[in-house]
């Protein structure tokens, strides 16, 4: 809890247990007791009682301009802090507008509590105005969801929702509250503890498993760690660093894991997979021991060729979700447990691996095959933009992204120093995510630089939230990598569909500088390297939000690349 939130909670009028209050008042009281400092939302008919309570509450509320903006902002807040993000939407269309955001959070295991209103229970099932069966709709995309039938259940349900969202493998939980429950009055008590019979998040690995892990290391000549987003969720970055340094095992960070290990560390191999580094992929191919830590071997890493993945390696897999063990790849040692406690327990049992020749080989490979692109005079390259953002902030910034080429270039060229600094939709691949997520990240970290890197396509999916950064003077620096085209789709159409460029032309987009100005936000444009450097400097010096429109080369492809269905050794390093 931040200092501000702690003070806020202390300043609350003492809770008199048994005090009569409405469901709506009770809900907000529960949120404060859970340490929530800010909620993102959008009012409407079915949540009028909640917004009426909010009118005189201590809770900070950010009015986004679309419910999708609210949930992505709550998600960005959660990713940047590790705390549970909270959003509120009304029934029907308000609730359905959350759907993309809920699925985004589930795929990346992000703790969210989403509160929706619904029509009164007397109207449920009558196709009432703004009625939607949101618990039914979100069943497959929530970790759990609730429909509150009785106001007396509300405090327990809120308590359970935060517990379920934030423990084990985190995820989104939705609470749907019909209007009559918000209006009903009952004595308030908040449960001290929570126990859910059907939910026992695995936490501790067995001693036997940890010993087996330590034994596996002693045999290895070519060990490698594949560290995923689970390291961040478990707050285990220090433990990973200690483990890797003590054992001298190189670390590959998955896309979701970027920031879990210092990007410039001598043991860091960067990102693997479809657009990963040559060296990271070679390490997977050649390793004799691969230790997956909080990573789920998804198809952007295995390329769907799970039988040929890490063909020479004994695979050890540590994950808090037992269902991930053996789901995608066959593994020799499966450890169900929290990755932090596993690393902590393992550290005293392990010693330096016999990996010197292997490390040297990988170091040589990194020098020989770095990420690279061709610089052309007077043409701004998109990779160059990300490099400049990195240089200007020395890897210290929080960077949110949308989805597509710019996202991969951020992963390649921004060397994250700190955990929870890359905020990006990895699993679902949600365009329009980055900018609203940056709002949440900036609210969580008012003093850090937050870049929202977006393509010209994705930015137009949620750019209405410019009103929010203006209203709250949130100094988010929006970097539009503007190539006038849906770049990743164009790349695939070029490579796999014989240059048949179908419906990818975005040249009729608005003038983003003028669009920013229409919202009262500073707008800047760069068309070459010098201008780019200058506007980044100007943007960072400006005390407020800025839109930077980088007009970049429009036929650039993301390399290296492994095409879907190929194995990692079939890697195309660049243009022929």
């Amino acid at each position, binding site marked *: 809890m931040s200092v501000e939130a702690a003070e806020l909670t202390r300043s609350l009028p003492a809770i008199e247990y048994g005090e009569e209050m409405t469901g709506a008042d009770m809900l907000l009281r529960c949120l404060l007791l859970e340490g929530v400092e800010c909620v993102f939302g959008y009012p409407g008919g079915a949540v009028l009682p909640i917004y009426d309570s909010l009118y005189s509450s201590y809770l900070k509320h950010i009015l986004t301009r679309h419910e999708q903006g609210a949930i992505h902002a709550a998600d960005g807040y959660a990713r940047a802090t590790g705390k549970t993000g909270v959003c509120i939407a009304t029934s029907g269309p308000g609730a359905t507008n959350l759907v993309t955001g809920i699925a985004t959070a589930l795929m990346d295991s992000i703790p969210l509590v989403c509160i929706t209103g619904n029509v009164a229970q007397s109207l449920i099932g009558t196709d009432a105005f703004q009625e939607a069966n949101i*618990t*039914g709709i979100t*069943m*497959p995309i929530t*970790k*759990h969801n609730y*429909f509150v039938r009785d106001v007396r259940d509300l405090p327990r349900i809120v308590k359970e929702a935060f517990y*379920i969202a934030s423990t084990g493998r985190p995820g989104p939980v939705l609470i749907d509250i019909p209007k009559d429950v918000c209006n009903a009055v009952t004595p308030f008590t908040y449960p001290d503890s929570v126990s*859910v*019979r*059907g*939910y026992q998040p695995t936490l501790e690995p067995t001693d036997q498993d940890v010993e087996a892990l330590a034994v596996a290391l002693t045999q290895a000549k070519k060990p490698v760690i594949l560290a995923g987003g689970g390291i961040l969720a478990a707050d285990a970055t220090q433990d990973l660093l200690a483990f890797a340094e003590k054992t001298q095992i190189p670390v590959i960070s998955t896309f979701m894991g970027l920031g879990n290990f210092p990007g410039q560390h001598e043991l860091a191999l960067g990102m693997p997979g479809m657009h990963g580094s040559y060296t990271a992929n070679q390490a997977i191919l050649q390793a004799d021991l691969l230790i997956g830590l909080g990573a789920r071997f998804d198809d952007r890493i295995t390329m769907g060729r799970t039988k040929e993945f890490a063909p020479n390696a004994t695979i050890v897999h540590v994950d808090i*979700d*037992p*269902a991930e063990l*053996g*789901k995608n790849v066959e593994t020799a040692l499966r450890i169900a447990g929290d990755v932090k406690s596993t690393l902590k327990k393992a550290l005293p049992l392990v010693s330096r691996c016999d990996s010197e020749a292997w490390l040297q080989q990988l170091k040589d490979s990194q020098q020989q095959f770095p990420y690279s692109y061709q610089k052309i005079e007077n043409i701004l390259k998109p990779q160059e933009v990300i490099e400049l953002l990195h240089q200007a902030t020395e890897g210290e910034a929080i960077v949110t992204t949308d989805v597509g080429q710019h996202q991969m270039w951020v992963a390649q060229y921004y060397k994250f120093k700190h955990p929870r600094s890359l905020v990006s939709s990895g699993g679902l691949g949600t365009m329009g995510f980055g900018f609203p997520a940056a709002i949440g990240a900036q609210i969580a970290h008012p003093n850090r630089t937050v870049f929202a890197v977006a393509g010209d396509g994705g930015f137009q999916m949620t750019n209405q939230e410019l009103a929010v950064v203006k209203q709250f003077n949130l100094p988010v620096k929006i970097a539009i990598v503007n190539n006038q085209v849906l770049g990743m789709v164009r790349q695939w159409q070029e490579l796999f569909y014989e240059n048949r460029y179908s419906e990818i032309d975005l040249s009729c987009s608005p003038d983003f500088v003028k669009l920013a100005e229409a919202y009262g936000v500073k707008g800047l444009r760069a068309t070459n390297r010098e201008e780019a450097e200058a506007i980044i400097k100007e943007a960072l010096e400006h005390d407020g939000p800025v839109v930077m429109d980088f007009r970049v080369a429009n036929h650039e492809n993301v390399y290296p690349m492994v095409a879907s269905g190929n194995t990692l050794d079939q890697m195309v390093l660049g243009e022929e």
Partner: protein
Amino acid sequence: MMMERHTLAILVNDQPGVLTRVANLFGQRNFNIDSITVGPCEEEGLSRMIVTTGGDETRVDQLRKQLIKLIDVIDVIHLSKDPMVAREILLVKVKASPSQRTELNGIVEPFRASVIDIGPESLIIQATGDTAKVDALLTLLAPYGIEELTRTGTVAMARSIVNTPIHS
């Protein structure tokens, strides 16, 4: 490829929407439900579902782990891995003129089925047994003309371990 058949016993909270959650997950993970039965169990507040489905062992094990993750699911047991008993109930309306009734009885009796309704031109037969037995009965009844049939789907239970002395 022959699909293996599996029987799972899923212990769930007796809550609205639980059947949807479980059925949804089968669809989400690309499993077909061959049959599903739900009813109260030995503990108040819980229900037991018996689901039969097809798929190889590894995938069914993955399905089991995903089911356990549902908050309203208390436990999942892969019944068909071990000795179990499984039964279903069949009701079938067969065309039968008065002169055919005796002949049909000759089929009904060896199956320990029973005639539970007699109409002018048809009979309703009730049978209980495992799926293979019910299938066999239907094959024998088919030539008479089946007007309507309904099956409950399988209910099943693990067999008791028999090597424990009774008077222990």
